C-alpha cells in the first residue's frame, strides 16, 4: 500500500505562509469588518491574494495560473476556513475557473482564466432561483437568442458573492437545453439586492430584466451547459468542504484550550464529563469532515471514480461544521454569543455555507440513488 496522509512539502509551506498572511493582513478588526461587509473583501486584499497566487492556484500554467492539484487548493481553503476569511476566492478562483475550464472554448479559457488569476475579473455562479433546487429542472431563467446575442430574463436567488463579483456565470434555459452565459455585472438590467438575515451570509437576489448580452457571452456550447457545470461543481465541492474542515478544527482547538483554562466549580471545565463529551463529539465531527474531504480530493486528483465520495464529503462536512459551531457555543456559553467571538463568526459562516452547492439532504439523496442503482 502507498497510504500516506501527510502533506507534501509545498503544501506544508502553503499552509504556513497562508496562516502567516492571515495573521499579518487580516487582524481581528479587519475580519469583523469583512464579515459585515457586502463583498467580504476589499480591492487591496483582492490584489494581495491574487499576487500570492490564491486565485490561480488550480488554473493551469498555460492560462496564467499555478496548476496545483485540488488537494493543494484544499490545504489553502482549510487555512482560510480556520479564520474564517470571507470573500469571493472560492467562487471565482475555484468554482468559476473550473466552470470555464470545463465549459469554455479554448479562446474563452485564454481570455478569462488569466484575468481570474490576477483578480482583474471576479466570477460567481448564478444558478439557484426562487424555486430553490440543484437540479436542471430548477432553472427557469431564460436566454432567448436574437440577432445580436441573447436576452436574459429571470431571478437568481441565494447567489453568493454577487457584490464582490464583476461577472456572473448565469445558468439559463435556451432553446433546447441549458446554457451558461458570462454576464458583466454592470450590464443594464442587472439588479442586485442583498438578502437580509443574520445567517444569510453574503447571498443576493440577482434580477435579470431583459438583459442584452452579446453572443460571445455564451460559454462553450449552446444548450449543453449543464453537464460541464455539473462536472465543475463536483470538482469544486471538496475544496469548499476543506474550508469547513478548517472551521471545524479551529473551533475544536479553541474549545479544547478553553476547556483546559476556564474554571468553574473550582476546576477546569474540561474535567466535567459533559464538557468532555462535547469536545469528543467536536473532534469526531472535525475528523469525519477532514478525511471524507481529503479522500474526495485525492480521488479527483487521481482520476478515480468519485461521485459518491464528493457527495459524502459535502454531506458530512456541512453537517459537521454546523454541529461543531453549535457545540462550540455550548462549551463557551455566554461569551460566545458576542458578535465579536470567534465561534459567532463561524456560526454565521456555517449556516450560510450549509446550503451552498447543495445542502446535505440533497447530497444524501444522490448517495441513496447511487446505492440502489
Amino acid at each position, binding site marked *: 500500500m502507498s497510504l500516506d496522509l501527510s502533506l507534501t512539502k509545498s503544501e506544508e509551506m502553503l499552509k504556513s505562509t497562508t496562516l502567516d498572511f492571515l495573521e499579518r493582513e487580516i487582524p481581528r478588526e479587519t475580519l469583523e469588518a469583512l464579515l459585515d461587509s457586502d463583498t467580504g473583501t476589499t480591492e487591496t486584499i483582492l490584489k494581495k491574494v491574487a499576487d500570492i497566487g490564491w486565485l490561480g492556484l488550480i488554473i493551469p500554467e498555460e492560462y496564467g495560473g499555478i496548476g496545483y492539484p485540488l488537494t493543494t487548493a484544499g490545504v489553502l481553503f482549510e487555512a482560510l476556513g480556520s479564520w474564517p476569511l470571507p470573500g469571493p476566492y472560492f467562487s471565482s478562483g475555484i468554482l468559476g475557473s473550473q466552470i470555464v475550464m470545463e465549459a469554455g472554448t479554448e479562446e474563452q479559457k485564454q481570455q478569462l482564466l488569466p484575468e481570474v488569476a490576477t483578480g482583474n475579473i471576479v466570477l460567481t455562479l448564478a444558478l439557484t432561483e426562487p*424555486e430553490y433546487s440543484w437540479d436542471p429542472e430548477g432553472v427557469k431563467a431564460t436566454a432567448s437568442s436574437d440577432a445580436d446575442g441573447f436576452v436574459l430574463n429571470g431571478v437568481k436567488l441565494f447567489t453568493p458573492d454577487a457584490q464582490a463579483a464583476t461577472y456572473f456565470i448565469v445558468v439559463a434555459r435556451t432553446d433546447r437545453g441549458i446554457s451558461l452565459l458570462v454576464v458583466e455585472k454592470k450590464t443594464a438590467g442587472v439588479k442586485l439586492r442583498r438578502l437580509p438575515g443574520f445567517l*444569510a451570509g453574503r447571498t443576493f437576489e440577482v434580477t435579470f430584466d431583459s438583459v442584452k448580452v452579446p453572443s460571445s457571452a455564451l460559454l462553450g456550447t449552446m444548450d449543453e451547459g449543464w453537464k460541464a457545470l455539473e462536472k465543475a461543481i463536483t470538482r469544486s465541492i471538496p475544496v469548499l468542504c476543506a474550508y469547513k474542515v478548517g472551521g471545524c478544527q479551529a473551533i475544536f482547538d479553541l474549545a479544547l484550550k478553553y476547556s483546559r483554562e476556564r474554571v468553574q466549580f473550582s476546576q477546569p471545565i474540561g474535567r466535567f464529563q459533559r464538557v468532555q463529551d462535547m469536545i469528543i463529539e467536536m473532534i469526531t465531527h472535525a475528523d469525519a469532515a477532514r478525511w471524507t474531504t481529503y479522500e474526495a480530493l485525492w480521488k479527483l486528483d487521481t482520476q478515480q471514480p468519485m461521485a459518491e465520495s464528493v457527495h459524502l464529503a459535502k454531506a458530512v462536512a456541512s453537517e459537521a461544521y454546523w454541529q461543531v459551531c453549535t457545540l462550540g457555543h455550548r462549551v463557551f456559553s455566554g461569551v460566545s*454569543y458576542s458578535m465579536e467571538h470567534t465561534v459567532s463568526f463561524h456560526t454565521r459562516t456555517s449556516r450560510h455555507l450549509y446550503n451552498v452547492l447543495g445542502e446535505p439532504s440533497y447530497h444524501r*439523496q444522490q448517495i*441513496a440513488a447511487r446505492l440502489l442503482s
Partner: protein
Amino acid sequence: MDFSIAYNREQEAFAEEVRAWLDENIPEGLKNTRDVLKMSREQFLLRRELSGKLGRKGWLYPEYPAQYGGGGMGADSSAVLYKECADRGLSIPPHYDSGKLAAPTILVCGTEEQKERMLPPIFKGEVVTWQLFTEPEAGTDEANQHIEALRSESDRDCFIVNGGKIFVGGLYAPPDQFLLLTRSDPDAPRHQNLAMFIAPADLPGIEILPLDLFPPGTLGQTCYTAGDSAPGVKHSVFFDDVRIHDSFLIGGDRDGWKVATATLTVEHGDRSGTGTGGVSRGGVYIPQNVLVEKILDQCKNNPNVRKRLEKNPHLQDTMVDIFIDGQIERLLATRNAGLSRSGIRAPYAGPQHSLFLKMFGTALTAKMARLLGPYAHTDDEEWGLADDLFEVSQRSGVCVAPGGTPEALKIVISRALRIGR
C-alpha cells in the same frame, strides 16, 4: 384521565371578560413583533403602558396575593389570561422583565415590610426589574460571585457595591430596579458568603452598557410565540462604589445563596406548584408551539416547500420528527400542568420540560435548515418564510444559556432525582 385543556364554563365566561378588556385596553399602535430586535422604543413604551393597565387590574401577576396587589386568582383563571394574551401574540408581562423572578424571591424571603413596599410596584406594572446574577467569571457556577457588597465602615446600614455583571437585562435600558446577587463576605465559606438585593437602578455609580451579541431571544429555546418577553439585547452593568441601603437587602447578610436558590428554582422551570412556596407561574396554561405549527403549515401549504418534500421524500421524516417532538413537548407541559393542578410534587418534571424544550429548540434549527433550505436563513420580506420567524429562531437556537444552560438543567434534574449533588 382527562387531557382536556379546553375552557370550562367559568373559564369561558372569564375569557369573554378578558377579551373585551383587551379590545378596550391594548394601546393603539401596539404591533406584534416576532423579532425583538425590531421592537422600537416607542413600541416598548406602549407595552409598558399595557403592563400598567394589566397591573392595576390585578392581571399582571394574577396568581399572587391580592393583599400586595396581585390578582389573587386561581390557576384556572390565570390560564385564561395567559392564553387570551398569547392569542394576540402577547406574553405577560408583554416585555422583558425579571419581576417574575423578583416577586417570589421577595414573597418567600422578604420581611413583611419589604413585601408591602416592594411587591405592589411590581404587581402593578410600575417598575421593570432586571435579574443581575451572571458575572464574567461566574457562568454556570452561580455561587461563584465576585461582585462585592460590603457593609460600609462608616455607615453600617449601607452596603458599598463594586464589580460588574454581564449578559443581563433586555430592551430597553435602564430598568427601574435590579435583583442583584453579590458577595458580602470574601472570607466566609462558599454558599455562606452571598447577599441578595432588590436595588434601585438609578443609584450613583451604576453604569449600564449594551452588548453586541448574537441577538438572543427565548424563541429558539421555547419555540413559543412570545418574542416580546425575549431580552432582545443584553447588557453589562458596572458598580463603582454604589451605596445600597440595607432596607433593600432580602434575607440576611449571608443568606444570598439560599435566596438565589429559590429564584433559580423558578427560572429552571419548576412548575410543579410548590417549588416556590406555593406560588405557581401560570403553569396550567399550555401555550401553543407556534414555531412548530408554522413549520408544519409551510410543509403543507407553501408550494415551494411542498414540492421540495415531494422531490425529497426523506425530508418528510424530518417533518415527522418535528411533529413528534412538538407533541412530546406539549405533553410534558400538560403533564406538568396536571401535576400542578393535583398538587403533586415531582421536582424533576419542571427542569425536564425546560431541558427538552431547549434541546428541541437547538435541534430544530438544524432540522429547519434541512427541511426548508436557505429560506430558513433569511428574514427577507419576499423570500423568507412566515414573517421573520424562521430566521429569528435560527439565531436564538444557538443561544441556550438564558434561563439556565442545558448543563445547569441537567444538574438540577440529577439533584431532583437524588443522584447528583
